[in-house]
């Protein structure tokens, strides 16, 4: 069956795919998880400026063990470097960057995205004691473009994360423009999800079978 003749991207593969679509000159925030690794796949000669919520403008490559500086971390508190031309700002200015429309792009991880662009990425229920809002709500409403990186289906039951409506508490309404999954790249349009790209060997029908929301050929 044709169904088995494709190989889903791994998490780094999703990050690599996103990096292909980020042009020189953009100012970009990368969320925690898959998005964090996107910068590793943007070649240094393509000048993209990466922002971290804790006030870093111009994140460089990860440091070698011997060069780790405990004063310099990203939003996931991992050690980073600053590239030449970078700058530091305090937390309120850093979120002025996020909320004030200064970011060309933000890439976030998510639990679910709906066909109207709603995103859910901070809790699986409102009563859950684990509440990991962080900076996602500010970034989601503030960036000029919001893309999402996530696996197409849940690990256990294989449920679709690409949905007609989100079942988890929302991070923001109607803000996602594009979703990169291990199976496809989907654009959010006024008419719902349009398939922009699929991994080799995957058919539209097989993708639709794994997706809650109706898809259109892009």
């Amino acid at each position, binding site marked *: 069956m044709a169904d088995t003749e494709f190989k889903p991207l791994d998490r780094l593969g999703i990050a690599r795919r996103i990096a292909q679509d980020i042009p020189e000159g953009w100012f970009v925030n990368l969320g925690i998880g898959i998005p964090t690794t996107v910068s590793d796949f943007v070649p240094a000669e393509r000048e993209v400026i990466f922002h971290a919520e804790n006030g870093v403008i111009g994140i460089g490559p990860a440091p070698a063990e011997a060069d780790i500086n405990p*004063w310099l971390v990203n939003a996931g508190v991992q050690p980073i470097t600053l590239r030449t031309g970078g700058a530091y700002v305090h937390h309120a200015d850093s979120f002025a960057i996020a909320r004030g429309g200064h970011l060309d792009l933000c890439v976030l991880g998510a639990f679910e995205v709906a066909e109207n662009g709603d995103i859910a990425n901070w809790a699986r229920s409102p009563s859950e004691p*684990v509440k990991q*809002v962080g*900076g996602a709500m500010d970034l989601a409403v503030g960036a000029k473009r919001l893309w999402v990186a996530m696996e197409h289906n849940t690990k256990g039951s294989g449920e679709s994360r690409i949905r007609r409506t989100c079942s988890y508490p929302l991070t923001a309404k109607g803000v996602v423009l594009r979703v990169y999954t291990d199976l496809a790249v989907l654009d959010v349009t006024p008419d719902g999800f349009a398939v922009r790209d699929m991994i080799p060997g995957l058919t539209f029908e097989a993708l639709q079978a794994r997706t809650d929301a109706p898809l259109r050929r892009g």
Partner: protein
Amino acid sequence: MIDKFVPNIQEAMAGIQDGATILLAGFKAGTPERLVKGLIEQGARNLTLVCNAGGGDDGPIAELLATEHVAKIVCSFVRPASVAARLYAQGKLELEIVPQGTLAERIRAAGAGVRGFYTPTAADTVLADGRETRVIDGKLCLLEYPIHGDVALIDAWQADRWGNLTHRESARNFNPIMAMAAKLAIVQTNHVVNLGDIPPEHVHTAGVFVQRVLHVPL
């Protein structure tokens, strides 16, 4: 002569009252760990703690919570495996989750004398339930109030006797805005410098926002 240096941790922490609101700066980097220890030793109880995240299983925030000095925490996220998550689940800790950019701006607003502001962040989410919203320029926005501190605990790289500060790399984060937002800003600094040694253009937190400085060498 203005001299904000105090000789020891006891004098640094003197006078903090039960029930005080404590603004604790830091994003891993830039956390004034000696002052947090000092707060535990000082013994004030029933505190409201305002900080970026609820800490982990160990570290300064976890210790402050585990020793039951804190009645309420205001932060942007709580990790599943943390003292904060367990105390909250047991009903021993009140929790107010605030999106990170809103948290920073509420603190900045307090320091700046702004009595409230409207932001699109979280306006479309359960965090807005029962709260005042209005549509501005076609966008739903949520009314937010300032967060004032009785005390701010601040980390610095350098300080002079007027309390002018520099912060290293991403250790700046919440430090400048929390110093502004509290009646009593207590600083731990790695280095003591002479008045005038920090070039005026390079002062990150002006001394007018600082009341006490303790030298805590690396």
